[in-house]
């Protein structure tokens, strides 16, 4: 479990254990046959991104904006490869019109979205898109599931991957801030 102390450099006598759910997510994505990973980085995805950086079987592509990834993974599917899009909730808004592509073509699209603007958020600018994330995805025909416990993240991703790649539909997993640990910039600013 990521705790707030871990994110803000708590001064305990021993370093807090790092969360291991990203390693389980990595394994679930490998088991699902993911070969292309498109991403705009988020802190909540950093451990998973490091796993893919170290994986020579996976093509890891950094995007300039998230909708590039929706299109890229449509191309991957046309060529017979599976992929995943890693993004923060703010990036979901950038994807809206591009989500027409998997919707109208019945293509799989697996999105893993790390949330901002929900549990424990301190930055007011994150609230509008964070609160709109699920509604936007569902409005565009994406099947949304959500994990708010670290122990449930990998199985939620596995279920969404099966749904996407077996039924050829777009599916998104939202990983809540309760899992990721909310940033506290005021505490950081005092240091």
């Amino acid at each position, binding site marked *: 479990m990521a705790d707030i102390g871990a994110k803000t450099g708590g001064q305990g006598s021993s370093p807090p254990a790092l969360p291991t759910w990203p390693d389980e997510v990595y394994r679930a994505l490998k088991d699902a046959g993911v070969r292309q990973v498109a991403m705009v980085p988020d802190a909540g995805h950093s451990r998973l991104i490091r796993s893919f950086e170290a994986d020579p079987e996976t093509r890891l592509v950094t995007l300039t904006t998230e*909708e590039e990834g929706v299109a*890229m993974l449509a*191309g991957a599917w046309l060529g*017979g490869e599976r992929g995943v899009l890693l993004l923060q909730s703010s990036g979901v808004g950038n994807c809206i019109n591009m989500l*027409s592509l998997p919707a109208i*073509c019945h293509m799989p699209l697996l999105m893993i979205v790390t949330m901002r603007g929900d549990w424990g958020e301190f930055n007011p600018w994150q609230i509008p898109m964070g609160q709109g994330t699920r509604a936007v995805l569902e409005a565009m025909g994406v099947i949304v599931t959500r994990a708010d416990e670290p122990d449930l993240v990998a199985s939620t991703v596995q279920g969404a991957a099966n749904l996407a790649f077996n039924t050829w539909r777009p599916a998104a997993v939202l990983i809540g801030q309760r899992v990721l640990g909310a940033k506290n910039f005021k505490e950081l600013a005092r240091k």
Partner: protein
Amino acid sequence: MTHPNALLHRRDVVNELLRARGDLLVIAGLGAPNWDVSAAGDHPNNFPLWGAMGAASMIGLGLAMAQPKRRVLVITGDGEMLMSIGALATIAVEKPANLTIAVLDNERFGETGMQKTHTAAGVDLAAMAAAAGIRTSRVVRTQAEVTGIRDLAHQGSGPVFAQIKIHPEALVFVMPPADGVILTTRFRQSVLGESALYN
């Protein structure tokens, strides 16, 4: 022989790019590039877009990475390319050797009333692609140069970017199938075989 400064005609350009296309895979951007590619001959190895503006070049990248032994040609318009200009940076970083992007640049939003795009004011897409790191990046003004891009698309070392200056003419629509499932399925069946039909 046309005047050397005369603008190219878009369907002449596309017919040349697709001459003896072999097993070339083609992504067409929405609007006139879709109609041009279809006028050259509807084909299961075409994926013509009817929406998702800005998708064409990144679909090309994902496809080129998934099918590294095939050649992928994206044919799109200046408005569509401008909407996803960041994709040039992403593609430059990934360096797909089998990807060519050909922009049919009429300096207009052709489907919406021929309003001027940024290229009409001098925005230089080829220079932007080159600055991003796509080394083979050209402005094309003659049919002979189009043949050069056609040859690069078929056997050159990519990524290749071409900004092809064309006449702002409005031509009759030649439309491929519009249904996304049909376009997706026939493309995948052609590239991947019968297994593509099964979930």
